[in-house]
Every structure is written in structure tokens, then in C-alpha cells.
């Protein structure tokens, strides 16, 4: 009886999980259909797969938008790491009262809606001729991710045993040796998780990309949003474009899922 109950719970769990995942599975499937198959009623679960839709998507220039997404996401992540690692080190391993106060500031900027700053940013960039500029977008993404990165990183640095650092200091290690040779090797997995989360947030960002880019610097999300106008048959090609757009992040997220929860809760949950 007990075994039966456990099997039943497992079955119910799996049915719910698969239902929940269905929209994504269906998107993957539809991407390989012809437009006629994609729009058929009742829906086709068995069909002859085709790569035509992917061909169409790249013919419509998705490549350059993907490239912009990669450039801005990777470059902004690097900037964030460069700024956040020293900051988190100072906050966690060499905490000083005055410096600790800036923690509150960092977390509060995360709660500031983009709405608060988008108008001046738009007009300043316009004035400087930097609208539709991938470098400008990269720096804004770095600013968007910096607070959460500092917070996450601090929670990883907090786990470095103080004895190791003290031992290094007694051995006469200066600050640089201490950081590079002693602390960093321990927190490498944490840094990787922070990098992946920053990458995901930049890659998915739509609001700023929509407003601050038009053509040469346009990233994937606004391209995707303007991809269909609701006329004619487009389900298969839309699914193909969406599949390409979500794939890098799904892979990154699946790889980092253990650390993901901690990053998302800003270090409050381990």
C-alpha cells in the first residue's frame, strides 16, 4: 500500500512537471515543423521534421542580433566581475565599518526600477550620439548586474575559512598574493555562478534594448518581439527563432542550477 502511494505521488509529480514544461517542449517541437503542420488543428504530434524555419530565421538576419547579444552579455559580465570581486573581497574578508555601510547602498540600487533612470539615460545617450551603440548598452547592463553580483559574491567569499587567510597573512603574503593565490581558488565555483547569472540577465533584457537600440546595436529580445505582426502563418518560424534565442541561457542555467537559487535569493538562502 505504501509503495503504491509513493508510486502514485511520483506519477502525479511527473505529470505536473511535464504539463508545466509543455510550452517549452512544444516550442522546440514546433520549430522543426513546416508552417502548415504548425498551424494544423488538431495539432500534430508526429510530423516530418524540417530545418527550413531555421534557414528562414537566419536569412532574416538573426545572426547579427545574436552577435550583439553575445557581445553585450559577455563584455558586461566581465566588467561586473572586474568590479565585484575586489568589492566583495573588501566587504567579506576585510570588513571595515565605513565600507560595510555601502552594502545597504548596493542592495538598494537593485530595487530601483529601470523606470527611474531610463529617461535621462535615453536623452544623455542621444545627446552624446550613443544611441544604438553596443558599448553604451554593455555598460548599462554591467550597472544593472553589479549590485546582485556584489551580494552574491560576498556570500561566497564569506565561506572562505578565516584561518586560511590568517595563515597566509602570517606567512607574509601581501594583499595581492592573498587574493589571487589563496582566496580566489576557493571561490572559483561561486564566481562562475555569478558570471552565469549576470550573463542570463543581460541576455534576456528587453526594456533598455528596445529603447536604446534601433538597428546596428539591436539585441535578440527586441528583434524577436518585432518578428511577427500577427498576419499569415508564422508559428513555426517564430518557434524556431525563439528556440535559438533561449538556448544559450537554458544551457547556462542548467549548468549553474545548484548555485542559481543562492544568486536569485541574493545570498539569503543557501
Amino acid at each position: 500500500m505504501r509503495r503504491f502511494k509513493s508510486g502514485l505521488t511520483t506519477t502525479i509529480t511527473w505529470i505536473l512537471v511535464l504539463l508545466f514544461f509543455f510550452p517549452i517542449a512544444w516550442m522546440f517541437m514546433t520549430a522543426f515543423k513546416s508552417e502548415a503542420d504548425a498551424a494544423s488543428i488538431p495539432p500534430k504530434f508526429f510530423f516530418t521534421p524540417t530545418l527550413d524555419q531555421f534557414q528562414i530565421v537566419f536569412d532574416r538576419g538573426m545572426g547579427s542580433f545574436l552577435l550583439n547579444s553575445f557581445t553585450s552579455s559577455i563584455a558586461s559580465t566581465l566588467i561586473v566581475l572586474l568590479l565585484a570581486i575586489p568589492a566583495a573581497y573588501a566587504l567579506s574578508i576585510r570588513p571595515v565599518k565605513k565600507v560595510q555601510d555601502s552594502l545597504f547602498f548596493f542592495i538598494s540600487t537593485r530595487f530601483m526600477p529601470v523606470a527611474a533612470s531610463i529617461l535621462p539615460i535615453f536623452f544623455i545617450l542621444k545627446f552624446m550620439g550613443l544611441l544604438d551603440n553596443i558599448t553604451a548598452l554593455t555598460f548599462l547592463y554591467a550597472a544593472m548586474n553589479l549590485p546582485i553580483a556584489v551580494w552574491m559574491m560576498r556570500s561566497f567569499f564569506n565561506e572562505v575559512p578565516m584561518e586560511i587567510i590568517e595563515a597566509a597573512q602570517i606567512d607574509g603574503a601581501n594583499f595581492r598574493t592573498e587574493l589571487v593565490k589563496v582566496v580566489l581558488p576557493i571561490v572559483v565555483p561561486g564566481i562562475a555562478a555569478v558570471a552565469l547569472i549576470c550573463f542570463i540577465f543581460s541576455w534576456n533584457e528587453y526594456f533598455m534594448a528596445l529603447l536604446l537600440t534601433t538597428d546596428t546595436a539591436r539585441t535578440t529580445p527586441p528583434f524577436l518581439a518585432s518578428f511577427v505582426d500577427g498576419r499569415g502563418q508564422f508559428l513555426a518560424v517564430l518557434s524556431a527563432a525563439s528556440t535559438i534565442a533561449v538556448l544559450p541561457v537554458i544551457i547556462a542555467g542548467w549548468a549553474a542550477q545548484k548555485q542559481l537559487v543562492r544568486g536569485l535569493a541574493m545570498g539569503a538562502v543557501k
Partner: protein
Amino acid sequence: MTTIVQKPGAQAVPPVGQAEKKKVRLSRSLILPALIFALVLTQIPFLVTIYFSMLNWNQLYPNEVGFNWFANYVTVFTGPDFLSSLGATVLITGSSVVLSLLFGLGFAILLDRKFPGQAIARTLLITPFLIMPAAAALIWKWSMLDANVGMVNFALTTLGLPPVAWNTDLPAVTIIMLLTWQFTPFMMLILLAGLQSQSKDVLEAASVDGSGPIRTFQWITLPHMRQYIEIATLLGSIMLLQVFDPIAIMTKGTGGTKTLSYLLYERAFIGLDVGQAAAFGVVTVFITILVATIALRTLFKVFMNGGDR
């Protein structure tokens, strides 16, 4: 001179004071770049937003730019848009938070036991939170909820129920459905971490003492989960308050979905009234700060209890 007068202790024991000063200087120089970067790119623009909000500045009339002080705020608070938009924001944020919290708790409980494929199930469940919101909005609008070829209506008719014109008749419901779907994994991850941090000894002791699963859940699990539910709710609310993508893509603010962030976008970039949009922005920030202050207080309590040196 003044520093010496203020810190007699530092002068009495110069080596310690020196070392201490050096330590402060190092810490400060490490954190300063990040601090300045964040200040310049997020805080200064906000101050400029406040300045903009006191201007009479419509891009259609570029020659009539001038100060009108608080006239934009008067328009914001007396106009019909603000209240209805605040209502839409509260409705959409509130229902999505509550629903995703409930689904998240359900999934967390189901996943907090050993079963075949547990890791895969968890991986599949977190995916909706990872995928690009723009892509999710498009797939839900056209592939799931479309009146003719959508899978939701196919499921309804298969079950013998009448089809629903989701996108035209129930725009607010479609947004809440999508957001619930996207944020359930977020809630689930935090709540699952909470469930897994429960002491197994306590649970075992309860079952030895004859407590059934429901009573154990009510008296042991729920109190333990309280802080996790709080974190999930507050972080979720703050993220959902700012939601823009699905509204811009699925409904364009029609049918009771014109939230504050969409209203600001519409005023500034479609209506071209910069001053008024800035005023909406400032008000939005203060509402967020209100929610965030409560959030921060709770978060700090949690942070300072554990994981701090």
C-alpha cells in the same frame, strides 16, 4: 591636526593605528570603483529624472521647454490614468505573486522527496524562469493562448469545454498566467531550499511521537518555512512590480494591463511627454521604495542572522 585631536587613542599606540588606517584605505580602494560605477550609472540618472519631472517638456513642442515645478505631479495624481494604472499594477503583481507562491510551494513539496528522475524534474521545472521573457510572451500569446490554433483551447475543447478568446477577451488573465508560469520556478527554488534545510531529527521525532504528516507540516514545517516564504514573496514582488516585457508584447496595455512601468513608457516614448513620464517614474520609484524598505528590513534580519562574519 583635527584628526589627531579627535583620535587620541590612535596617537597613543601608533603602530596599531597605522595598520588600521592602512586596512581602511585598502578596503576603501577596493570597493570604490564598484561604488562609483553604480552611483554614476544608476543614482545620478535618477536625480536627473527628478529634475525632468519638474519640466514642461513635450517632445512635440521642443521650443516650449520650461519649469512648471509640480504641475506634472498634480496631473499625475488628479488624472484618471494613475489610479487605474496603480490598480492594474497591484492586481497583476499581487495575483502573480500569490499564485506563483502557491504553485511554487506545491512543487517544492512534491520535489522534496526521493523519486526516479528527481534531478531531471527539477531541471525542467526551473526552465521557465530562465528563458527570455520576450520569447516566453510570444510563445504564450501565439502558440498557447491563440483562439484558433492555441494549445490551451485545444485542451479545453478536448475536455468538452468551450474555447476562450484569451488574447482579446481576457488580456489581464493572460499576463497573470504567463507571469505565474515564469515565477513559479523562482518561488519553488527558494522554498525547496527552505524545506531541505529542515532538521531531519526534528521531523523524525515528530513522527515517532505520533504526529501525522498534516500536523507535522502545520506545526513544524510551516513555522520553519516562514522566513523563506517572506524572502520569496518580497523578492518576487519587487521583480514583478517592474515587469514590462509581456505587457509590451502581449497586450500593449489594453484591458486593464496598463501597469505603472508600461504607462511611463507610453507617456515618454509614444506620447512624447517627457516631463509627465518623469513624474510617473518618480512616483513609481517611491512606491517601489515603500515595498523595498519592508523587503530590506526582512532581508537584513536574515542576512545578519547567518552567513555573516
